[in-house]
């Protein structure tokens, strides 16, 4: 087991190093610059700016300097917003994005599961068809359309919730609703399929023939077994939860990390792009690392083969 963990750890470090290197050179290969200098700016001013941020040096030298700083845990300061450090941005934006992302997954999963159960139990009934329609809508309507829609009605027309901002609990509801929308559809569909599958299994017939009543069959046998694929899919769902909602963050003006990532790329804010990419990569790599280890515990064959 120790050897397995060590091996996974080494590959994790290599992955991070590769991500950092590739991002660094790709980022500099993309045309653009972090400064918005007017066209009449004289060379003297341009040169001073480039020198201030070390951009006048050869790319390889910049790379070495960046990597050295990175090893010391120094992610640097945004080139455009001079008071914002990369780590500061992550610590302020990540929790906000997490609330919306995980809130969306959780709410979507719970509501979606209920719909799925209803649909499966009332198979081919009107509820079932409504859930199918919902599932199709959920998959086909992009979340920025749905976000603008609920913003218009719940906030602008009916004034139930604030239109935008991030100042308290009532500001959380609409963005989480928007983020949950696709998930509701996804989980409803998944649970419906998986339940119908389980309901056709032999052991359900056995349970029925034992004389168990409907509630016991559903509660003890069907649900437990049909939740398995749902649990498996939560992993990748959560990985995208932190960064996947930048459109919703934009609509509801939520100071999350997804929005920062987009604006840093648009601004060619080199330090911010690098820092955020590496931190995101780090989080996903850690997640996969943990998953690998759990798999190892659950299934000894993986451990031996790995």
């Amino acid at each position, binding site marked *: 087991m120790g050897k397995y963990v060590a091996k996974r750890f080494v590959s994790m470090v290599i992955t991070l190093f590769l991500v950092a290197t590739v991002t660094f050179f790709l980022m500099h290969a993309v045309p653009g610059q972090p400064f918005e*200098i*007017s066209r009449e700016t004289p060379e003297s001013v341009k040169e001073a700016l480039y020198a201030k941020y070390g951009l006048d040096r050869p790319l390889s030298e910049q790379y070495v300097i960046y990597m050295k700083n990175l090893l010391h845990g120094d992610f640097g300061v945004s080139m455009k917003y001079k008071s914002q450090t990369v780590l500061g941005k992550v610590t302020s934006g990540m929790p906000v994005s997490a609330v919306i992302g995980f809130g969306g997954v959780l709410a979507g999963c719970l509501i979606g599961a209920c719909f799925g159960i209803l649909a499966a139990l009332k198979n081919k009934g009107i509820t079932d068809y409504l859930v199918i329609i919902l599932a199709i809508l959920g998959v086909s309507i992009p979340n920025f359309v749905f976000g603008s829609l609920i913003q218009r009605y719940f906030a*602008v027309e009916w004034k139930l919730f604030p239109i935008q901002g991030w100042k308290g609990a009532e500001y959380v509801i609409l963005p989480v609703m928007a983020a949950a929308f696709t998930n509701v559809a996804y989980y409803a569909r998944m649970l419906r399929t998986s339940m119908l599958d389980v309901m056709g299994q032999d052991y359900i017939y056995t349970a029925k023939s034992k004389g168990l009543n409907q509630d016991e069959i559903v509660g003890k046998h069907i649900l437990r077994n049909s939740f398995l694929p749902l649990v498996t899919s939560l992993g990748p769902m959560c990985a995208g939860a932190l960064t996947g909602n930048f459109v919703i963050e934009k609509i509801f003006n939520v100071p999350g990390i997804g929005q920062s990532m987009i604006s840093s790329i648009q601004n060619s804010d080199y330090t911010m792009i690098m820092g955020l990419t590496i931190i995101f990569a780090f989080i996903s790599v850690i997640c996969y690392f943990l998953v690998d280890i759990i798999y190892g515990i659950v299934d000894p064959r993986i451990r031996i083969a790995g």
Partner: protein
Amino acid sequence: MKKQVKKGMSLFLMLAMVICLTACGGGSNKETDGNTKTDGSTAADSTSGGELADEQVLGIYRKTEPATLDPWVNNSGEAGTMVAAVHEPMLRKADNDKGYEPALMTDYTVSDDHTVHTLTLREGAKWSDGTDITADDIVYSIQRVLDQNLGSEIAYKYYVIKNAEAFYKGEAGAEELGVKASGNQIEITTSEPCDYFQDILTGSQFCPVQKKAAEEFGDAYGTDADKTVASGPFKLTEWVHENSMVLEKNENYWDAENVTLERINITITSDDNTVQGMYQNDELGILQVKEELLEQYSSENITDVSSLRVTFIEFNPNNNEFMANKNIREALSIAFNRKLFAEQVMHNGELAAYGLVPRGVKGMDGGDFREQAGDIVTDASDQSEIDRANELLDTGLKEIGKTKEEMEKGFSIQCLESGKNQAQAIQNMWKTNLGIEMPVSVLEINVLLPMLTGGTFDCVIGGGQDSEYRDPQGFMQFIYDEGKWDNDEFRALVEKAHSQTGDERIQTWMDIEKMVLDNFIYIPQIYAENHWAVKPYIQGLKIFDYGYEFDFKHVSVTK
């Protein structure tokens, strides 16, 4: 059964789509209790409104997060509004015949040759922390922006000061720099005669920063609420980055007794639906209305503000053999109909630009530059001119030995996302009139800017030039500064203008404008205009056509 369900489903989907579409339109056309439409350069400038509301709060929005509120570093007109709300300029812009009202400067004298400018600082003006604003702060501010370590993108704008460039490059010391202070007087020497110096002083770029704070925070001054010391009518009390800002009344402001507004809530968002909803629910007092939405907002109190900006098609004669040919450039210029373009794309035929300098710029003897200079370029009035354009194109192509097909592949029209409609309209005009269809490529601003500065573009549409002061120089100096157009006659004329003052100088700029346009490198498109919906209870808001957009100093909110 199954078929029925499918039918029902598609109906449902259609219904859902219709709901989406109507919702996204974001209409406020329900409100019919409209106010009269007003035209003019400033809005709601009356104090005749009703009783003051209990809460003096104004909500505004900005599309992008300001990089800084440091007046000496800020490079954005949008952020300039906040810079000038928090920092006091030497003179505040106004719409009286002088163009300004007193601010930090109480007196201004200039030497006969227009090179030595003496500014008298207001006695008793204070920073928001209660300390005095001194002449020393101003001298320090100027020396600071000319220090390479600050990394200001606009440092070159201060090169008008004597020896500033040399000081910036480290070739001259502080004692050689043309800025001196004695008592409450500041003496600024310009390297050449400058009779528009007071116009420059109305900009937000000359608002001093506190020496103590600037020394403490360095280049991070102005990037957070606790890293900004106010001298203007408002102070920055909260800044949640990429989200919101709060400005509150500065009690230590020299003219605090004339400031009624207590608080400005600034929302930073680029989502159009969000700001439209906020305006509808009175969370915003001001909303910028795009041309295509003007009809929808026709019942609102709309103020059209022509902005001191000209947009043009720019050809690059140095990067491309087609563009290097003057006949081809002229053909393309004739085949572009400004009037039609202004009517169809900008929804206002009046905006068509027949010169490089927009209306509202200082001309000779206090008049208007544009009126005096007249129309320099004209639209093709009939088919014979279109025929001439075709002849010119053929001649040009023959000169470089190319065909139309080769030209279509030879270069592309470059534009920003915001200029896509414009580019497509012009692409279409060239196709109709000349039978050539050039591809359009849409680029990000930070991709296009280096192409412009590096001279690697072919033909840019929707670009333009604005000025921070009402002077023709602001619209043509950039051509000289870029130094890409290598024409001795042109350079000599610009240098001549810089040695002149008064009407002579204006006349020289008129000659320069004509010369530039005769070479078909810059093809004027339109004079820009913005449309603002302003809530009727917002009084005294000043909206400007150049530099910073708003002044909130005199704003009050009525019931």
